[in-house]
C-alpha cells in the first residue's frame, strides 16, 4: 500500500454514499508495474459486529469507499482472482486524507489461484465425470441442500470408508443417494479433486489476460454491503426487508429473530429469542441427525410481513407459526393442526398465511382473523408414496419409542416430494412447487381445489410471479430459470450463464415488481444474478465472500437487493460467520434509509 497526492476527482466521488458523520477511503489499485487493475474488489470492514462495504475498482484502477464512521478503525481487503489478497489495517482518516493506493502482486502458484475460484468451478470437475443425467441431477439436488459443493471444506479426497460414512450421515440429514450411485462417489470425488490434475484444469491459461476477466463496467458500479449477523453457529436461513426499513432475519439454529437497522453506519442489531418451550434439541420430532453445533429447538425458517406490519414466521421443527409484534417485540405462537415441518410462507391479500409443509406433503392456510386453519393434502406420486406419507406421523412417534433395523441411510428412491416455494398469482391463485417430485401446483384460494403440473425440468424450488402474472421458477438441479404462463400452461427455459456452464444451483429467485427484473441466487458461485426480461439479458454480480450460500432474495424500498448467507455449517464460510447482504446495483446508497421508506 502507498499514499499518493490528493486527487480532487476522487474527493468528489466520495459524496456518493455518505452521511455527514462518515468518512471514506479512495485511491487506485495497480500492479507492481503501475498498470491499473480493473475489477478488483475493495472491501472495507469496520465495527463489531462488523459491516463490510465492497466496491469494484474501475478504469485506471480507481476506487472509492465511503460511509465509514469517522471514529472507526477499519480493515481494507483488496481481492482479484489471480492476484494475492491485500489486507491492510487503517485508522480513521480526516476530510483532507490523501489517496491510498494498493499495489497487487500476481500469483504464480496455480494452486493459490485455484483456491480463489468460487466453489462451482471445482464442482464442475465432479459433474464432468458423470455420464448419467439421472445421477448428475440426483447429486446436484441432494448434495447441495445445505452447503456449497466444491468449496474448500468439501473438495476433499477421502478414503472410501470415510466417504461411505459421510454419505450415510448426509442421508440421515436428508440428502440421500441411490445405493448404486453412492458406491461410485469415492472414486468420482477423489478423481475430480486430485490436486495433480484439478489445479491444472482449473487454472489453464491463468497467466494470460483472458483468465478470470474483470466484471463489466455496469457491474463495477455496484456497492455491496455485508452485515455480520449472529454467531459462528448461526444459520440466517431467510431474511426480509420490512417496509419500515429494517431487515429481519431468522436464525434457524439459535431460535432467534434478528433485526438490522441499516440506516446506522455499521448496522444496529437487535436479537429476539423465540420461545422454544421445553422442546428437545432438534424439536419434538427430531430426525436423528442434527448439525453438531445446533441449539435449534423450534427452527425458525421463513418469514413474511403481515398487513399490520407484524412478522410471521414458520417454526419448522417446532411445528408452529409464530407472530412477532414489532411494537411490543413479543411473540405469539400457533400450533399446526396437522402436517409436519412448516416451511415457506406467503401472506395473501386477505391476510391469510399460506405455507408449504415439507415433510408431510401439505399446504397449510391460517386465517388470523377467524383463527381458522386448513391443511390441504397434496397428491402423492403413487399409491405407495401416499401410504408412506400418511404413515409418517405414526412412524415419527414410534421412532422415539422403538428402534428400527439399520438402514445405512435413506436412499434417493425413498425421497419425499417436499412442497417448497409458494407465491400468489395476480388472480389470487396459490402456486407452490414440489422440489423432489418435479412438479408445481395450484390451489384455488376459495375452494382449495388443487391441480398439479409436471415441470419439464428438475427440482423447481422457490418461485415468484412477476407483475404480468408470469411465474418464474428456478430449477435447482437443472441450471436454469423457467417462465411459466398460467394461461397457456407453457414453460420457457432460460439457461443460467454461470461458468462453467451447468454448475449453478439456483435455490431461489424473486422478481422486483418495479422493474420486473428477475433476481436469482447464485448459490454455488458466490453471486447474485439479474435477468432483465425486456433485454433478455443476464448480469452476474460477484459477491465478495467465499462460500456465500443464498436461499432467498428480497428488495429494499430504494431498489436495493438483499439476501443472506446461510451455508451450513457456518464454519465453511470465509470468516466463519453468516452475513446478510445488500447489493446496490448503481452504487447509489441513500442513507439514512429508515426515513426514506414508508
Amino acid at each position: 500500500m502507498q499514499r499518493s497526492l490528493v486527487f480532487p476527482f476522487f474527493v468528489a466521488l466520495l459524496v456518493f454514499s455518505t452521511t455527514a458523520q462518515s468518512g471514506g477511503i479512495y485511491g487506485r489499485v495497480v500492479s507492481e508495474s503501475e498498470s491499473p487493475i480493473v475489477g478488483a474488489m475493495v472491501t472495507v470492514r469496520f465495527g463489531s459486529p462488523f459491516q463490510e462495504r465492497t466496491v469494484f475498482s474501475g478504469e485506471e484502477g480507481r476506487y472509492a469507499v465511503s460511509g465509514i464512521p469517522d471514529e472507526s478503525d477499519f480493515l481494507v481487503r483488496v481481492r482479484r482472482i489471480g492476484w494475492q489478497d491485500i489486507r491492510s489495517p487503517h485508522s480513521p482518516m480526516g476530510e483532507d486524507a490523501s489517496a491510498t493506493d494498493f499495489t497487487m502482486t500476481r500469483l504464480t502458484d496455480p494452486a493459490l489461484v485455484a483456491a480463489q475460484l468460487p466453489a462451482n468451478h471445482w464442482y464442475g470437475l465432479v459433474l464432468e465425470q458423470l455420464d448419467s443425467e439421472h445421477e448428475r441431477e440426483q447429486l446436484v439436488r441432494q448434495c447441495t441442500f445445505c452447503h456449497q459443493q466444491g468449496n474448500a471444506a468439501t473438495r476433499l479426497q477421502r478414503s472410501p470408508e470415510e466417504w461411505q460414512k459421510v454419505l450415510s450421515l448426509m442421508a440421515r440429514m436428508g440428502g440421500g443417494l441411490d445405493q448404486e450411485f453412492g458406491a461410485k462417489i469415492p472414486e468420482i470425488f477423489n478423481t475430480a479433486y486430485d490436486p495433480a490434475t484439478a489445479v491444472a484444469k482449473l487454472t489453464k491459461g491463468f497467466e494470460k489476460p483472458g483468465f478470470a476477466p474483470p466484471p463489466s463496467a455496469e457491474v463495477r458500479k455496484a456497492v455491496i454491503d455485508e452485515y455480520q449477523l449472529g454467531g459462528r453457529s448461526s444459520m440466517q436461513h431467510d431474511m426480509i426487508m420490512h417496509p419500515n426499513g429494517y431487515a429481519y432475519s431468522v436464525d434457524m439454529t439459535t431460535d432467534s429473530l434478528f433485526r438490522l437497522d441499516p440506516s446506522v453506519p455499521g448496522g444496529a442489531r437487535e436479537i429476539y429469542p423465540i420461545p422454544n418451550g421445553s422442546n428437545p434439541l432438534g424439536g419434538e420430532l427430531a430426525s436423528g441427525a442434527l448439525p453438531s453445533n445446533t441449539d435449534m429447538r423450534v427452527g425458525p425458517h421463513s418469514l413474511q410481513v403481515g398487513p399490520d406490519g407484524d412478522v410471521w414466521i414458520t417454526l419448522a421443527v417446532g411445528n408452529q407459526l409464530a407472530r412477532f409484534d414489532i411494537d411490543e417485540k413479543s411473540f405469539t405462537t400457533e400450533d399446526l393442526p396437522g402436517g409436519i415441518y412448516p416451511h415457506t410462507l406467503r401472506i395473501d391479500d386477505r391476510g391469510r398465511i399460506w405455507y408449504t409443509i415439507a415433510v408431510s406433503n401439505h399446504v397449510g392456510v391460517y386465517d388470523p382473523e377467524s383463527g381458522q386453519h386448513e391443511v390441504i393434502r397434496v397428491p402423492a406420486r403413487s399409491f405407495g408414496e401416499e401410504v408412506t406419507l400418511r404413515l409418517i406421523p405414526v412412524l415419527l412417534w414410534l421412532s422415539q419409542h422403538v428402534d428400527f433395523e439399520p438402514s445405512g441411510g435413506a436412499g434417493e428412491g425413498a425421497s419425499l416430494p417436499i412442497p417448497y416455494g409458494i407465491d400468489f398469482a395476480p388472480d389470487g391463485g396459490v402456486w407452490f412447487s414440489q422440489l423432489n417430485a418435479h412438479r408445481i401446483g395450484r390451489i384455488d384460494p376459495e375452494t382449495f381445489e388443487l391441480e398439479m403440473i409436471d415441470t419439464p425440468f428438475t427440482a423447481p424450488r422457490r418461485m415468484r410471479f412477476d407483475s404480468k402474472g408470469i411465474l418464474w421458477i428456478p430449477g435447482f438441479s437443472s441450471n436454469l430459470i423457467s417462465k411459466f404462463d398460467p394461461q397457456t400452461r407453457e414453460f420457457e427455459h432460460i439457461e443460467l450463464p454461470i461458468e462453467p456452464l451447468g454448475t449453478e444451483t439456483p435455490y431461489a429467485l424473486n422478481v422486483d415488481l418495479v422493474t420486473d427484473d428477475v433476481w436469482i441466487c447464485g448459490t454455488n458461485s458466490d453471486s447474485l444474478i439479474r435477468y432483465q426480461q425486456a433485454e433478455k439479458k443476464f448480469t452476474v454480480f460477484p459477491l465478495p465472500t467465499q462460500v456465500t450460500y443464498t436461499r432467498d432474495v428480497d428488495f429494499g424500498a430504494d431498489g436495493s437487493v438483499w439476501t443472506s448467507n446461510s451455508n451450513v455449517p457456518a464454519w465453511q464460510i470465509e470468516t466463519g460467520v453468516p452475513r446478510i447482504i445488500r447489493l446496490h446495483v448503481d452504487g447509489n446508497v441513500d442513507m439514512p434509509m429508515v426515513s426514506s421508506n414508508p
Partner: protein
Amino acid sequence: MRLTTLVALFLLAGCGADDSGDPARLSELNESAASLSEELSAYGADEPVGLKVQLSFRSDVDLDLYVTGPLAETVYFANHTSKSGGEISRDVRCDSEDPRIEEVVFNSPLPGRYRVGVDFPARCSGDPAAAAYAVLVKHPGEELRKSGVVHLEQFDVAVLEFEIGDKYKRD
C-alpha cells in the same frame, strides 16, 4: 431424510424391539458404560498438555466422537482439524484395531464453550439397538467424565458441554 428411512423400513423390513427399553438390558448397558469409563481413565494416564477428549465404546458398534470448540467448528471423522486447533486422532471403525477409542486433542485450547457429541451410525456385529459409551475430558489438573447409552442412528449432539477459561489463551 431419516423419515424416509423409517418409512421405508416400516414398509419393507418392519421394526424390532428397542432392547434398551428392557430394564435388564438398560442396566447391562449402564454397567458397560461405567466399566468403559473406568477403562478409559486407566488408559493413557498421561497429563495432557492442552485439552484431550476421548470416546470409548465396545467392538460391536461404530460410534463417532464430535467435539465442537469455541469457534463453533466441529472436529469429527469428516473434519479432521479445526481452526481452533482441534485434531482427531483417527476414526475408529468396525475393522479398526483395539483400543476402540477416538480422541480429539487441542494443544492450545481456546477459552470458551466446548460441546461433545456422540453418534451411533452403524453396528459392527450382532443387532444392538443401543450402545454404551464413555467420554473422558482431560486438561491439566481437571477431568470430566460422562458415560451413557446412545441409540442406533440417533445423534446425541450434546452429551457433555463445558467451559475452558482463558488459562490456555493463545497468543
